[in-house]
């Protein structure tokens, strides 16, 4: 008995030591700053994206139980980059509430956060590494016409009632707005779905929200009764949205960031979901060939992804413009997938927007 136990204990200790040694060996060969996230994702066979499924256009669950929206499309793009394609099994949306974001990031349990995330200094330091801005919002206002609030006149918000999401940074921005303009208003806080219901019922006169995006659900109301609402063109503060990865893994951060660049560059070069195969085979453009990986690599090997990673991604979700079109266009509105909005700063720099990413060369 005792002997068996001893043998077992020794064997266990040896295994642990061997594993530690192996781990140390492996670490030694890794570039500085690289972590294990990519291996974890590959071992798991699945990439986990945190999102909230209560936002039309950005992320929701359809009748078949499938996750759809801008955020899930990015998750699919990441899956295509890591695994070659996005199947039902290799990407997953983990539904979280907005107030849970900091703790979910700190626990490190998810790979990338595709939720509608406002990028702030505090969050960059405390939550994780934000990647590139995918959407330029500000704290926007949608006010009802009977409220007597004059659009774009902040002073007229004084003494009225607003609604916004609980646990969002709009709660703080609202306080800043009050002190900046010397006004006070009542602010009712809800989970996202509740904001729309409360505004619709007349509980509040205006909604504080990202100048679109989170405002999408209110936009839906403004569509059914367009004459009852004012959508302000002035915004308060800066509200840039970006995807977010846990701190401490440069390889993973780079990989997620490159996917974003590929999507934007593809739009710039006219590579679309439909023509990507054709372009890959036939395009004479050096830039296109470089993007699609026919001309060797700009670092795919170091990120351990396929040379033609861009082809896989674009085949899966299309380019940046196509994704936006899928959820923020007249067609999207008709399908019930989103709503129409002008492309503002999230347009390419060539067309007067701010989307200006480095080349994938």
């Amino acid at each position, binding site marked *: 008995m005792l002997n068996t136990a001893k043998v077992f204990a020794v064997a266990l200790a040896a295994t642990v030591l061997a594993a530690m040694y192996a781990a140390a060996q492996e670490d030694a060969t890794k570039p500085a700053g690289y972590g294990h996230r990519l291996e974890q994702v590959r071992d798991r*066979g*699945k990439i*986990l994206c945190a999102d*909230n*499924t*209560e*936002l*039309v256009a950005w992320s*929701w*669950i*359809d*009748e*078949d*139980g*499938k*996750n759809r929206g801008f955020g899930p499309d990015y998750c699919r793009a990441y899956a295509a980059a890591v695994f070659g394609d996005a199947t*039902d*099994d290799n990407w*997953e949306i*983990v*539904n*979280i*509430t907005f107030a*849970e974001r900091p*703790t*979910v990031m*700190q*626990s*490190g*349990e998810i790979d990338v956060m595709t939720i509608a995330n406002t990028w702030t200094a505090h969050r960059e330091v405390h939550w994780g590494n934000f990647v590139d801005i995918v959407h330029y919002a500000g704290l926007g206002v949608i006010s009802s016409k009977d409220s007597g609030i004059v659009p774009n006149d902040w002073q007229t918000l004084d003494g009225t009632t607003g609604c916004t999401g609980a646990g969002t940074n709009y709660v703080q921005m609202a306080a800043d707005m009050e002190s900046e303009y010397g006004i006070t208003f009542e602010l009712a806080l809800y*989970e*996202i*779905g509740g904001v*729309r*219901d409360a505004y*619709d019922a007349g509980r509040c006169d205006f909604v504080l929200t990202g100048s679109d995006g989170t405002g999408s*659900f209110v936009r*839906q*109301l403004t*569509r*059914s009764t367009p004459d009852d609402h004012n959508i302000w063109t002035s915004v308060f503060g800066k509200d840039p949205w970006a995807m977010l990865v846990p701190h401490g893994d440069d390889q993973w951060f780079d990989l997620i960031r490159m996917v974003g660049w590929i999507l934007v560059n593809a739009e710039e070069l006219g590579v679309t979901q439909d023509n990507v195969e054709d372009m890959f085979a036939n395009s004479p453009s050096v830039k296109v060939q470089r993007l699609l990986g026919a001309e060797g690599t700009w670092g795919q090997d170091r990120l351990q992804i396929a040379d033609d990673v861009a082809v896989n991604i674009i085949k899966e979700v299309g380019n940046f413009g196509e994704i936006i079109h899928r959820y923020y266009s007249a067609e999207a509105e008709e399908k*019930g997938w989103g709503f129409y909005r002008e492309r503002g700063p999230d347009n390419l720099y060539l067309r007067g927007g701010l989307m200006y990413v480095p080349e994938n060369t």
Partner: protein
Amino acid sequence: MADRASVTGVADVADQVRPPVASTGPLGWVRANLLDTWYNALLTLGVLVALYYLVRGFGGWVLLTAEWAVLTQNLQVLLVGQYPDEEIWRAGAVMLALPFVLGLGWSVWPGFCRRLAISLAVAAPLVAALPVEFASLAAGFRVYLLLNTVLVGAGWLLGRSTVFGSARSVLATWLVLFLGGLVFLRGFAASEALPFVGTKQWGGLMVTLLLSQAGIVISFPLGILFALGRRSSMAFVRVACVAYIEVLRGTPILALLFVTQVLLPLLLPDWMDMDRLTRGLVALILNNSAYMAENVRGGLQSVPSGQLEAARALGMRVHHITARIVLPQALRNVLPAIVGQFIILFKDTAVISLLGLLDFLGTANAILSGRQQWFNAEIEMFLFVAAVYWVFTYAMTSVSRAIERSMSKGVG
């Protein structure tokens, strides 16, 4: 005097003395129960008028105004969440364990389960016959509902005619089917027939039912342990158990859920990571086992000390006394309270939706917010959600009440 009585005659007496007020029959019942005094009559009238308007308004709304498409269109998501389409038969099969076990229970405890089992067996075909479109679930869903009836009957027959018909084997069957069901739902990474489906894709009513069952299975024995610990003569064990019970009973379930969701990953080493659903389950178990311990303690206190002394005098070992003498009596004495605690656990599972977990209520909320066409369907949706919770809770309450009745009769 006698003269006068005879003079007035029978006919006069009949005029003066009216026939007694009917105290039997429907009229008498109405009089005795609704109109016995003037203020009761007024009350009855008022209530009747209010009822009339309520029924008319609500009935009209249900039949004419309400848009029930939000339910029929999303039924699959409401029932099993994001469980993959191709694998949905697995979810259906696992959920069929409940009617089967209920049928078995019927054969063993007819007094407690008969009405429930028969109700389910009758209700399922009725729902299947409803003239509505079940969207993506289509005709298969109707067949599935009929299977419920078949399995109740099968369980009953099996229980009556084979060895399955004992209390112990019903509980064992339920436990085996439940745990096996979990494995079956989860599947195996390498398997072709049963591919892996993670708990993040589980959802809807299925998750609510699984969570409640898992909560019962785990927190019941834990509760017994803590109750015994609280009565232990060892000071340290006692103090630890008291602290556990009191702290967890005093904390709202929502706060506990947030703690397990957010802090558990910090409290456990990396290699012990749990998925979000399991963490929600941990909170439910922590809370519920503390309450269960208090219920069991009540039962332990009700066992006369003479029983213990007698057992000791017979030379029984301590653990035998506890397992064979004390616990069986203690648990029987507080059975209604224990069932009541199961009901509370079942209702508490709804709170996990606030942590973004897609249980029945969470799924309902996600559907309401996800698409514009459902934005205004809250009342329909919440009524449906409330009705479903009600049905399950009412079923459990009726069982608990039957147990209580049989105990007060001394049958127990």
